[in-house]
């Protein structure tokens, strides 16, 4: 091990430098969330949990936290299910206008969130639909559906076609094939798609900002805090968002690797 690293001295230096660059904003964010003082700027006055206390007694923030979780889970669930069904349909059938269908499904990936948000905002205005968490969720499905579809579709290999056929051949109905065979087999990628989608929705700002009204999501509240007054509470909120995303990603990584590992 040590010998290996010696041979690659430059690589190690680069890796360490890169990790330093990548982690420094996170470290600063987290450290100053424990700032004992009014301002999240040096010098660091020693650890304090006061800003976390303040954050959790902030009703709007706690409510927005719940909103974010609800929006992330429901929108990701729907995006995953629709993405899965679409991937299944595409993999199973010779769809007419196949290239066109794929193009439409993947198209939102090539459009900035801001533009998707503005488009939806304009449409809501035209049809007189009030903005709400629901519209935020719809926006998040728009951005996550192509990702879910792509992740799941890429895992639909030829072997799955035969598994699908085998299940039907043995008498399983459409629904049974889907729920008892295909979905369980695809579980790792469904799970990965769901987790990625949930973390993206959970931390998405511009669509949530444009399409929400009273009930807002956490990033919007944090943005409001950022515009309202400089305090380490923003750091505390940011640290919490990061921590929750990180846990989700870590769980996803472990679950997926365990599942894929077992496959081998």
């Amino acid at each position, binding site marked *: 091990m040590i010998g290996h690293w010696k041979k690659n001295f430059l690589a190690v230096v680069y890796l360490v430098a890169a990790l330093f660059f990548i982690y420094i*904003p996170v470290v600063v964010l987290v450290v100053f969330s424990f700032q004992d003082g009014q301002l999240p700027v*040096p010098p660091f006055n020693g650890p304090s949990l006061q800003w976390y206390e303040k954050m959790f007694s902030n009703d709007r923030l706690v409510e927005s936290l719940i909103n974010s979780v609800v929006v992330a889970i429901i929108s990701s669930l729907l995006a995953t299910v629709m993405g899965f069904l679409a991937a299944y349909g595409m993999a199973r059938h010779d769809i007419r206008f196949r290239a066109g269908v794929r193009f439409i*499904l993947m198209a939102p990936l090539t*459009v900035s969130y801001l*533009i998707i948000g503005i488009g939806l905002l304009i449409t809501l205005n035209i049809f007189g639909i009030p903005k709400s968490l629901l519209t935020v969720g719809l926006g998040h499905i728009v951005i996550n559906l192509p990702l879910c579809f792509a992740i799941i579709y890429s895992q639909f290999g030829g072997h799955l076609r035969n598994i699908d056929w085998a299940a039907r051949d043995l008498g399983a109905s*459409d629904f049974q094939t*889907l729920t008892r065979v295909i979905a369980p087999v695809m579980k790792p990628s469904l799970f990965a798609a769901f987790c990625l989608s949930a973390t993206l929705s959970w931390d998405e700002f511009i669509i949530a900002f444009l399409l929400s009204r009273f009930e807002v999501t956490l990033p919007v509240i944090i943005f409001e805090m950022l515009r309202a007054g400089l305090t380490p509470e*923003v750091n505390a909120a940011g640290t919490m968002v990061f921590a929750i995303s990180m846990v989700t990603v870590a769980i996803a990584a472990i679950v997926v690797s365990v599942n894929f590992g077992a496959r081998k």
Partner: protein
Amino acid sequence: MSAPGKPVAANIQFELSRWAVHPAIIFTLVFFIIPLVAMVIISFWQRIYGKLQASWTVANYEKFFGRDYLLEALYNSIEVTLLTLAISILLAYPLAYILAYKVPSRWQRFVLILTVLPFWTAYVVRSYSWLLIISENGILNVALIAIGLIDQPLEMAYGRGATVLGFVHFFTMLLTLTIYANLVQIKASYHKAAADLGANPLQIFFRITFPLSIPGVAVGAFITFVIAIGDYITPQILGGSTEVLVPQAIMLQIARAANFPMASVMSITLMIVVVIVYFIIGKYLKMDRI
């Protein structure tokens, strides 16, 4: 695939899965395509004296392309994005390469996750934490002065440099991920074969590894382009509005003036730029492999 005169009863269950793509397609049509169409339509309307006028005009386009300071937002956006892209690729490629080839394979997964984890830092506060680092009283200046490298704080915050820094931080991680994913798919036997045929490590890299890794670079670059050129927060917080990028111009129109027609024109322009980029690097893109 269907033949005429099928007994319906026997086929119903076999056909059900044909409807599997429909929810996603209908959803995308309703909540993505229709809004884009609405945006195109509204870009030909005008907001006059606070009221939306549904009369067809290209005045908004004329204004956007006719005024230097608006068109400059487009140039700025493209410049900042390309600069971000170039630096991010230069930083990410060696990192991905080290991950794929220098890190022992049992550690790779762990180091990879470690490397891209801050990708999930709260988006809104990411730029703000950079400010805490690069401002004149920030960590970096304090540290540099403390070790005696400088005696006057460096002016790093606010401006294009700071915006690009914020972007590069984020997209280096993204590109590392896509390039790494591509590099590990290149079979080790290619390298062995090339070495066997007398290629030196440099030749192996430029003749084998690099050409085969282009798709990974292209996918990462395209996503970077789409996200960076449409991002509002990073330039808004780190750039300090010392110059205006298109997303900021759009938000000015929406938040200050509710001028949706003008915002639509800018959005459409941004989309067209992305489409052009898509066609330039499109042949390397396998979007479904992301």
